[in-house]
């Protein structure tokens, strides 16, 4: 019964419940969170599903693959230590309450 919160650059909050098993990108698109594009369909090819993870949540995240790491070098908004790709993270009970910041641009 995990939930996830997205915060847009304008400060708008979207909290979505019951998201276990779904990927961050799909959750955002399904619930019309603005600012996630995901043009490659979640295939780790475009970096337009970029999110910043709240600092306090970082230790809970699964490690990133070499593929995600490489693709994060190609984001439109600057890459930061808390950058991740929404299509590469699946929600699990361990991630309950995750907070994500949507970057100001994806293109």
């Amino acid at each position, binding site marked *: 019964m995990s939930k996830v919160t997205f915060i847009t650059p304008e400060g708008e909050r979207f909290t979505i419940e019951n998201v276990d098993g779904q990927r961050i990108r799909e959750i955002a*698109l*399904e619930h*019309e969170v603005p600012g996630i*594009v995901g*043009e*490659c*369909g979640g*295939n*780790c*090819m475009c970096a337009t599903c970029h999110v910043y993870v709240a600092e306090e949540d970082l230790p809970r995240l699964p490690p990133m693959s*070499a*593929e995600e*790491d*490489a*693709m994060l*070098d*190609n984001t439109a908004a600057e890459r930061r230590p808390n950058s991740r790709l929404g299509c590469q993270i699946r929600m699990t009970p361990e991630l309950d309450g995750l907070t994500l910041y949507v970057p100001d641009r994806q*293109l």
Partner: protein
Amino acid sequence: MQRVVIIGGGQAGAHGAMHLRARGFMGEIHLVHAEPGLPYQRPPLSKTFILDESPPESLDFRPAGFYEKERITLHPTKAVAIDRARGEVQLGDGTGLAYDALILALGAAPRPLPGAPSSLLMLRTREDALRLRPRIAASREVLIVGGGFIGCELAAALAGAGRKVRLIEAQDEVMQGRVSPLTARLLREALEAEGVEVLRAARIAAWDEDGLGVRLADGRALRADLLLAATGVAPETALAAEAGLAVSPSGIEAGADFRILDPAIFAVGDCVFAHNLFAGGPVRLESVQHATDSARHVAELLLGASAPYRKVPWFWSDQGKRRLQIAGLIAGCDAFRIEGDPGAMSFSVYGYRGEELRCVESVNRPADHIRARKALTEALDAAS
């Protein structure tokens, strides 16, 4: 600009519509989408979707509510004609749809194969894949005709799922002309190591009536309990041709900005044959990247932008555990250099035209791929 009509709700059409709205276009957006369901992505079809149980909607770009909220009107019907004099598209449901700007995002469709039975199974649409699922589930031996990207992806996926797969390729090598000879050979050998029998330079002389077998030019008869043709697509040009627009077998002809002779009409994605700055000439590209970027470029033009289209092509193909990523274009490359460890299926092949780096094919080397995209983009920016 009051009303933009987009024909074709594929990768290009759907992303063009979304981008127009995202960039603040205030007028009407109409998306003529002939396929069942909402606009969806194709790449998973040949990699995972045919084998798993995921629901059809899992491929949708956006949920239904998105189109309502963004005021993108979906017309679930075919466009049957374009009346350029009146600035109107005729729809299959008998209505007319006036446009101020018209974007043709018609895609491509499997090229008909002379002599093949009408029951021949192909894979382009979600409906095709849904029809295939039970056939694949019930199959033990599969014949795949065509060793292009999709044929190789299917072969790897089906072999991975325990099917005995034979892949029939007319050329001397799989993916010929699409990747370097080195990459093609290494990826083919990987397929063979997984049990796929690859028949090269194998020409089909005749098709069995029931769509389950072929006879090769050398006399061999091959049969299986499932036969799939993945022999390439032809651009959808008929609608444009009937409207008097310039078309050729290569596609709907357009200039560098995807403009065609009629200033109110543009063509994007798989259907267009357009001058391309990176290629240095007209090309037709079949990729998610080109579909999305070309459609976005036209959206920007309609909103008043004037920067030229300057994108480095990229592409990917997942063949079982092997992820091939390509930056640039192979055409014209005359020298190749390999880096990495082909034995461990982790390598990149760098393709050059003279001294100039033109193409990088990476297999399970994502960092090389991103570096290549950046290097090619910088070189293009510096040259133009």
